[in-house]
C-alpha cells in the first residue's frame, strides 16, 4: 500500500519533526496552550491525587481543598516538569501539600511517631484464623483500621495497595530510601493485621 508514499512529504515532516506539540498550536496564546496541555497530562491523575489527600487528611472537604491547592502548585511548577513519571510527580506535590496543611491545621498530630529503622519482629499471631478473618473483613472495619495507622505507614500502604505503586515510586513520592519503604510497608501491614485481628476478634 503506497498511497502515502509520494507527494509533499517535506511540508508534513517540517511540522511533525519539530516534535513540539505546542509549536503545532501556533494560534494559541502560550498560557492557554500550557493550561490545555496540563489538563491533558495531569488532570487524568485526579483520582489518585484525591485518594492520597483523602487518606492523609481523613476528611472529604479537606481533601478537596488540598487536592485543588496541589493542582495549582503543580501548574506553577509545570514548566519545570522534565517528563518521567507524571503520577509520582503529582503525588509528591500532593503529599507535600497535605503535610503542610496538616501541620498548619492539625498541629497536635505528630507525623512520625515511631522509630523507622527498627525492623518489626512483632508476630501478627496465629495465621489460619487470621486468614479467614482478613478474608471476611468488611469495608468499614478495613477503612477504620487503615485510618488509624500513623501517617507514614498509611501513605505507604495506600500508595502500594490502592495505587499499585512500586517500591521505587513510593520511595520517590515519600522522599525516603527503598529500605525505609520496605520497612514501613512491613510495619504497616503488621499493624493493620493486629488492628483487624483485634476488631474482628471482638465481633466474633
Amino acid at each position, binding site marked *: 500500500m503506497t498511497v502515502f508514499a509520494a507527494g509533499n512529504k517535506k511540508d508534513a515532516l517540517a511540522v511533525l519533526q519539530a516534535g513540539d506539540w505546542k509549536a*503545532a498550536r501556533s494560534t494559541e496564546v502560550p498560557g492557554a496552550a500550557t493550561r490545555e496541555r496540563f489538563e*491533558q497530562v495531569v488532570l487524568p491523575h485526579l483520582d489518585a491525587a484525591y485518594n492520597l489527600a483523602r487518606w492523609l487528611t481523613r476528611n472529604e472537604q479537606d481533601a478537596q481543598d488540598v487536592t485543588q491547592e496541589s493542582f495549582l502548585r503543580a501548574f506553577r511548577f509545570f514548566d519545570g516538569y522534565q517528563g518521567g513519571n507524571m503520577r509520582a510527580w503529582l503525588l509528591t506535590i500532593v503529599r507535600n501539600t497535605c503535610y503542610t496543611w496538616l501541620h498548619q491545621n492539625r498541629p497536635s498530630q505528630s507525623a512520625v511517631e515511631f522509630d523507622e529503622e527498627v525492623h518489626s519482629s512483632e508476630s501478627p499471631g496465629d495465621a489460619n484464623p487470621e486468614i479467614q478473618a482478613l478474608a471476611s473483613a468488611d469495608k468499614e472495619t478495613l477503612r477504620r483500621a487503615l485510618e488509624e495507622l500513623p501517617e507514614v505507614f498509611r501513605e505507604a500502604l495506600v500508595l502500594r495497595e*490502592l495505587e499499585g505503586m512500586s517500591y521505587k515510586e513510593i520511595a520517590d513520592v515519600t522522599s525516603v530510601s527503598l529500605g525505609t519503604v520496605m520497612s514501613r510497608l512491613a510495619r504497616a501491614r503488621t499493624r493493620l493485621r493486629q488492628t483487624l485481628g483485634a476488631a474482628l476478634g471482638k465481633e466474633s
Partner: protein
Amino acid sequence: MSCELTQRYVPGYLDGELDLVRTIEMEAHLKGCPVCAQELESLKALRAGLQRNSLAYAAPAVLREHIQSSLREELSGTDAREGKSGWWPSLNIWQLAGAFALLALISVTSWQLTPRLRAPSSDQRIAAEVFASHVRSLEANHLMDVASTDQHTVKPWFDGKLDFSPPVEDLASNGFPLVGGRLDYLEGREVAALVYQRRKHLINVFVWPDPSGTSSTQTIESRQGYNIMKWSRGGFQFWAVSDVAPPDLTEFVHLLQVGAPPQTK
C-alpha cells in the same frame, strides 16, 4: 517455628519486587516452608480485603470543575495568587464557579440568538462532528462494521459501499494496529472510518475525497481529553481523533502521512 527468610523476602515476593534469581529461590523455598507460605497467604488475604472493598476514593466531579476554574483564574492573573497566600476560602471557588456558569449561559444564549453572525468555520464544524462521531462510536458499541487487522480485508470491504476507495494501511509494527473499519457520516456525506488501537486507546480516522486539499497538518483542537488532527494527502482529507497522548497521536499521523518504514526481514 520461625524462618529467617519470612520477614526479609516474603513481602518483596508478594509485591513482585524481588529480582529474578531471588524470586525463583523463594518459589522453591515456599513449597517447603510452612511459615513463609502461611505468611504469604496472610498478606494475600490482607491485600484481597483492601482491594475487594475498593477502598480507593474517587474524586467528586465538582472537584474537577473547581480545579479547571482555578487554573483559568490562575492564568488570568487575578489577585488570587499574591493577594491570598495559601488556602482559598471555598466561598471564592463557588463564586468563581457561579461566574463561569453565568458566562457559559450568556455565551450559549447569545450563540443561539445570533447564529448567522457566529457561524463556526468549516473546520470547527467538522471537528465537532468528528468529536461527536468518535464519542458515539465508543458509547454505542458501534465501533466497527468490519473487524479485521488485515488491511486487505478492510479496504475491499468499503468497495461498493462508498463512491471512493479509501487508503488503508496497517501500522501494527509501529504499535498502532488496525482493528477495523466502518461507514460513518460527516459533512453531509458518507465517509470511511478506520479504527486503530494504541494499547487500550482507540483512534478513529475519518477519510473522504478532497481533491483541493493542501498537505499541511493541523491540530484542530482538544476537547474533553480528546485530540483532533487533520491533514490532506493524495486527494483525500483525513481527520484523526483519539484520547491517546498528544505525542502518540502526532507520531501516528506522521506514520500515516509518510507510510510505515519497510520492515526488514
